[in-house]
């Protein structure tokens, strides 16, 4: 497993669509890993990007508010377990549940599955809601 630096290149987006929503900030989000995506650079996703993917899924589900998603940011990753690398061609489903909220911080538990139903990765992330200026 290679730990590459995060590709801070615009647009830095994985999460494509909300597949199912089960209340505020909980549900399933789909993300296709494409060969042309800046995040994959034609190869497998770096392990750290699974945390980013869970965060993007969580913020997409957090009220479905695009502005909110833009203001929120990934503040922490913990207990990340990677089963296998995701490669271009994979279509990933990300299940997100809220572990807890306090102030502007929200902790989410996420599990990432491939199209066959095998778990690709799981972990917890913390996102912070930035406040509008």
């Amino acid at each position, binding site marked *: 497993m290679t730990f590459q630096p995060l590709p801070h290149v615009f647009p830095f987006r994985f999460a494509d669509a909300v597949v199912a929503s089960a209340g505020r900030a909980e549900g399933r989000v789909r993300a296709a890993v494409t060969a042309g995506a800046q995040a994959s650079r034609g190869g497998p996703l770096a392990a750290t990007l699974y945390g980013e993917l869970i965060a993007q899924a969580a913020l997409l589900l957090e009220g479905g508010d695009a502005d909110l998603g833009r203001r929120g940011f990934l503040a*922490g990753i913990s207990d990340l377990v990677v089963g296998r690398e995701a490669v271009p061609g994979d279509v990933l489903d990300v299940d997100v549940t809220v572990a*807890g909220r306090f102030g502007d911080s929200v*902790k989410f538990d996420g599990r990432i599955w491939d199209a066959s139903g095998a778990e690709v990765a799981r972990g917890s992330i913390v996102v912070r809601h930035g406040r509008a200026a």
Partner: protein
Amino acid sequence: MSSEDLKPRVKELIVRQLKLDVDPASIKDDAPLFGDADGGLGLDSIDALELVLGVEKEFGIKVQDEEVGVKAFASVDALCDFIRAKAA
């Protein structure tokens, strides 16, 4: 539950929940948990969220909002007072 029974449990909770590399017994009862004060643990807002989750899991007590949390997490003594008050 007496204060003396509760303090070691709270210190264990802090170390376990935040994955700190310190001896729980070395945490001073009245030292500030947050900020950079001498003798404090230097915790931050993300740690506060983990503490909220830990207190809820360990004691079944919810920390309702940030204002309550700031007071409850001021120190081990303050957290013990908060837990005792909620459990009463």
